[in-house]
């Protein structure tokens, strides 16, 4: 079942202007959107706040209703707390399978540390990673 290992990340688009990110962070807080992990990417054009949140579907709706541009993106979480080499192994598996890793970022929780990656073919990646014995985060773990 690859689905349970495909995690919904919210990608929030932020214009590159002073104070814009702070305003969005405040809105998320006021809407009780609880960010578990996040990463901020910046292009020449605009910033993208990538976040793993509680209840992504509900959070997505809350954010959208505030007039903020948000999209859902599928990512995969590689468990790294008990096997430090698993990140390298995961990258190796994807490389051999010809699956492209677009970006990744770390998450450290109370019970779990993980590295979230965005790949071009998430379902195929989950199958390949699992076959290689790599532990993956389930949506319910975080």
């Amino acid at each position, binding site marked *: 079942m690859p689905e349970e290992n495909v995690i919904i990340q919210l*990608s929030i688009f*932020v*214009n590159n202007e002073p104070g814009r990110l702070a305003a969005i962070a405040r809105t998320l807080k006021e809407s009780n959107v609880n960010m578990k992990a996040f990463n901020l990417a910046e292009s*020449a*054009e*605009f910033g993208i706040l*990538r976040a793993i949140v509680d209840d992504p579907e509900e959070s997505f709706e809350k954010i959208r209703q505030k007039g903020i541009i948000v999209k859902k993106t599928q990512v995969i979480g590689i468990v790294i707390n008990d096997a430090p080499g698993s990140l390298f192994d995961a990258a190796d598996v994807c490389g051999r399978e010809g699956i492209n890793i677009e970006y990744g970022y770390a998450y450290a929780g109370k019970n779990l540390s993980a590295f979230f990656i*965005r790949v071009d073919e998430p379902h195929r990646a989950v199958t390949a990673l699992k076959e290689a014995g790599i532990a993956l985060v389930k949506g319910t773990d975080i």
Partner: protein
Amino acid sequence: MAYWNKELETKPKEELQKMQLGLLRNELRTMYDSSKFIHDKMKSVGLLPEDIDSFERFRKVPFMKKTDLRDNYPDNLFVKPYHELVRLHVSSGTTGNPIVVGYTQNDLDNWAESLDRGMTSFGMSKDDILQNFHGYGLFTGGLGVHYAAEKMGVTVLPISTGNTERQIKMMQDLPITSFAGTPSYMFHIADICDQKGIDIRRDTKVRYAIAGGEPWSESMRQKLQERTGIKVHNCYGASEFYGPMFLECNEQDGLHVWADLAYVEVLDRNGDQCADGERGELVVTMLKKEAFPLIRYKIGDISSLTWEKCGCGRTHPRLMRISGRTDDMLIVRGVNVFPSQIEGVIGEFAFLTPFYRITLTNENFMDSMTIDVEIGEDSLTEDTVSIDRMTRSVESRLKDVLNIKAVVHLTLPGSLERFEGKSCHVKDLRRYD
């Protein structure tokens, strides 16, 4: 080849120009005597109507501007009392007062005469049936085309704008041969016909269209003709003249501007006359207006005029397609840039919304131009590489069209300020001190 007024339409150029100068002096005399506005204008430069013995001399008469028309709202420029008027039209304005234009019966007759010569020049006759989807009412398009068509015996369906379903039913059920309306509405009709599986070539008898009332391009005409099989004739005018007035003949090579009704100057940046065929600012004088004078009026459009004889045999000058507006022309690094050109490029990319902003800055007297344009929400992606690719493709197309480099910034949907009736905003931050 049919003519509406053959003798006049084919008069040699020299005779036409002589007649034009005579009419010009007559009109100036009438307006000098009856319009305080024109009287004061001529007096301010010490000219009497009799002094105007050449077109060069006429160029000493001060311009009339759109602001003059607005400032004299509602009827201060009328030179006839209401009991001599038979109609009023009101132009919509995005800023300030609207412009109210009054017409005598002779004004209406001259207006219709102009359109009748034009419609005849591409083959329309009393055998035709015209579906007029120009708006009827204060806007001049509906009634202007309506009366002109009736006067030449064309059967008119005064359906006006909107209710596309009914428009499409009528053009199939009745033997409609021609359309009049805005090009964008014709595109809309073509789209709906496509959706419904209606082939205009097969399922209707429509052969010609009169398209105007908004800026449009030659490539739009080609597209419209290819899609519909209808020969589409450009039409130009303004309520300040009378309304839509000048049409293209069968040759589709410029609008025939009737020399006995209007005198059109094309001027360069210094106010000197441009050479035949050279692009410049249009200044329009109406030669037979009765109720509302229009002398050396800066309409704000850019185009060129040629006296070269048309392939159809008509000798009157031809006005080329309007290629820009004076009020929004920008000069960047010495190159003329029209927002309409930028708009055209933006329209070519499905991933952009129509909203954009032009920012001009300079450093060491070197101008730079930045264009912020919104990406459509559906095309927005996390993938910064493809965002970058989109930006580069817009920049490269702009370079081709404008001949100068513009820096493009894609911004998020909804992030650019919206202005009433305008999708563009120009921010000129250049300093010259």
